[in-house]
């Protein structure tokens, strides 16, 4: 199979280039398998990866123009030459490795932790199955960054717009029947940029490797804001 891989080592290369690679590999394998085979021949290829089964979220890359996890995209589903690039819009450190700091700082900024003001009981907080069901489709996020780095609003305002991943997590806590910080959370997301830069382009929904729907979560936050206002 034919590949074109984004290469850039700032210590050697003046500018990034696309490296052509031919590989004898079964099409049933995943993109990550191909990258590992290429790295076995050329150890200088740098990319992040770890669990190989789509739960650690390390290997977000751009494959033939679409963000995805290398370990979950089957080679046979792709048109050749298979173009592999870093996820767009982030500073490139080397080859397929990008600097994710801005992405993480938006995540931290939504205070992604359960906040309860009441005294703690000696047993678990009770939550009905129906209340718990509201967290499905939210808590499974693996922070891979496929969504936010596919979002034009995030490309344009990476410093001010929280981006789909962070907003999904903001809603994960708003939707949690145990959480008692609703007002503060909503206040923090108000204003023209942090959330309202979302123009429902829905790239995030298309690329999420876990099948999550940040756009829907953002709409739910807007509904809560409306409710709070009334």
């Amino acid at each position: 199979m034919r590949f074109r891989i984004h290469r850039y080592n700032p210590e050697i290369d003046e500018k990034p280039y696309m490296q052509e690679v031919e590989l004898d590999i079964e099409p049933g394998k995943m993109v990550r398998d191909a990258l590992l085979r290429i790295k076995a021949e050329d150890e200088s290829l740098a990319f992040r990866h770890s669990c190989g089964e789509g739960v650690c979220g390390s290997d977000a890359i751009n494959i033939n123009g679409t963000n995805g996890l290398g370990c979950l995209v089957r080679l046979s589903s792709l048109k050749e030459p298979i173009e592999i690039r870093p996820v767009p819009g982030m500073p490139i450190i080397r080859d397929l490795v990008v600097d994710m700091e801005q992405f993480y700082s938006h995540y931290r900024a939504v205070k992604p932790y359960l906040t309860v003001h009441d005294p703690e009981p000696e047993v678990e907080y009770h939550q009905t199955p129906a209340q718990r069901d509201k967290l499905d489709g939210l808590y499974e996020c693996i922070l891979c960054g496929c969504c936010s780095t596919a979002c034009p609003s995030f490309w344009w305002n990476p410093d001010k717009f929280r981006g789909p991943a962070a907003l999904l997590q903001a809603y994960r806590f708003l939707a949690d029947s145990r959480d008692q910080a609703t007002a503060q959370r909503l206040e923090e997301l108000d204003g023209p940029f942090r959330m309202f830069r979302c123009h429902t382009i829905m790239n995030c929904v298309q690329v999420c490797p876990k099948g999550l729907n940040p756009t829907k979560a953002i709409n739910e936050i807007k509904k809560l804001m409306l409710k709070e206002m009334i």
Partner: protein
Amino acid sequence: MNIPKRKFDTLVIGAGGGGLRAALQLAQADASVAVVSKVFPTRSHTVAAQGGMNAALANVLPDNWHWHMYDTVKGSDYLGDQDAIEYMCRAASRTVIELEHAGVPFSRLDNGKIYQRPFGGQSQDFGGAQAARTCAAADRTGHAILHSLYQQNIRAKTHFFDEFFAIDLVKDDEGFVLGAVVLEIETGEPLLIEAKTTLLATGGAGQLFRTNTNAHINTGDGLAMALRAGVPLQDMEFFQFHPTGIAGKGMLISEAARGEGGYLVNKDGERFMERYAPHAKDLASRDVVSRSIAIEVKEGRGCGPNGDYIHLKLDHLGSEVLDKRLPAISESIRTFLGVDPARDLVPIYPTAHYTMGGIPTNKFGQVVVPVDTGEEEIPGLYAAGECACVSVHGANRLGGNSLLDIVVFGRAAGNDIIEFLQENHYHRPMSEQSVDQALARLARWDQKGKGEPVDKIRRELQVTMEEFCGVFRTEDILAKGLDKVIEIEQRMTEVRLQDHSKIFNTARIEAMELENLIDIGVATVASALARKESRGAHSRVDYPKRDDSHWLKHSLYYKEGRRLDYKPVRLKPLTVESFPPKERVY
């Protein structure tokens, strides 16, 4: 040793569940905490734990911590230390409640309490009916716990060094551990982190084996750092093979699949576990189920064109159970096998999964080494989680006890470190010689020239371990295996990197990870060769019986001289009567 320095009260190496639970305890006690992790914390392998965490909450069936303790002692094939096991089982319920309060989205029962499911090796009333002790967030429990712990650490303002690789511990002539030399992966520059205590929470070494359920990062870095610092590794011959890895690929299919009612069938469609474990059947201990699968295949009752795997049957569970209780493994099965668990049988085979052995610690997380007739702590050094050997798992870990282990002993280590910090106000003088030694380990990879590539040696190591130190072992096979891993160790000196750049040089990291794996591989095979009995996961065809009169003891492997030593199992619990060894049937 002219390198940049940072100073903290306490250093945690590893940001999985153990490291993050300890860090949280410390940060909440206002200690300054540095957490060093070679990956962003939520990429740590705790994230991949699926089925759940054991605690006798009795939310579904009657239960208490003492029954849990009995099951754990029996599951360990009596090699577990009963004081540590009592401590863990007693702490379990409180620890789960703490996690729930920290935000873990556990699945729920109709009455609003935490959902619990049956898991292997669990019983009510000391060996009676099946228990339901495993607290679960669908089949993503590890993910739920790791993310919640990371989130609480954000709140507690823990200081993270993300994507820093730990090269070696630093210690002085009196044996105090003073911190570690680490490498910032992005810049390729070393950094000295000085700390009054250092906690190793670096996880297991599943990458020793070709087919494994582990992540690429599970290279046992902390185990090897301990070995190089002169600390022995305990019980390394006990490596768990999980019964249900995806055949040929290794991805984990949680024991929850059987806990929710799935079962194993051979090529004749026979539910063969009824023959091996008439009472517990598919929910016998993992060592028992893995051996049974291997025997079925060996005796010609395997499935598929080559008869080299077994089928896991889930199609009778119905889409409700699959979607609600087992969504992630259902997705994994669809993605990696292209089959639908609601309709098709799932090909599985035992797969390298969990390092029972590790750095010897007591129940406070302190690293201990034998001195004369007793044990002594190494001042300033702690270990918790899969890299540690407390030992609560003994010769075989029960499913659902690993998430419990990391959280209970991460927390315990945190508490003991707080005490240590109260008694030790000042950093000790730095040992320049020790720092230089760590830097030499890094500089070795600057050697230029031709040599064998890292990737080739790693593959040979993994194949060797699988072939010569797998589910079934004999003197002859292990002796050959030991020769081979030692040969690999010697060849490692001739390995050279071709890429000498600094920025995000993953080749250099993988070279040091391979050094770590090789040290652990030698420890594992040498310990296995020496133990002439079958116990738990260590199955010697030439010594098929457990031999308590000679081998009811822990192995200790030292790197220097490849020396083996032994220490007694602590059979005396903290408050209750001991569970004396007896025949183990399921």
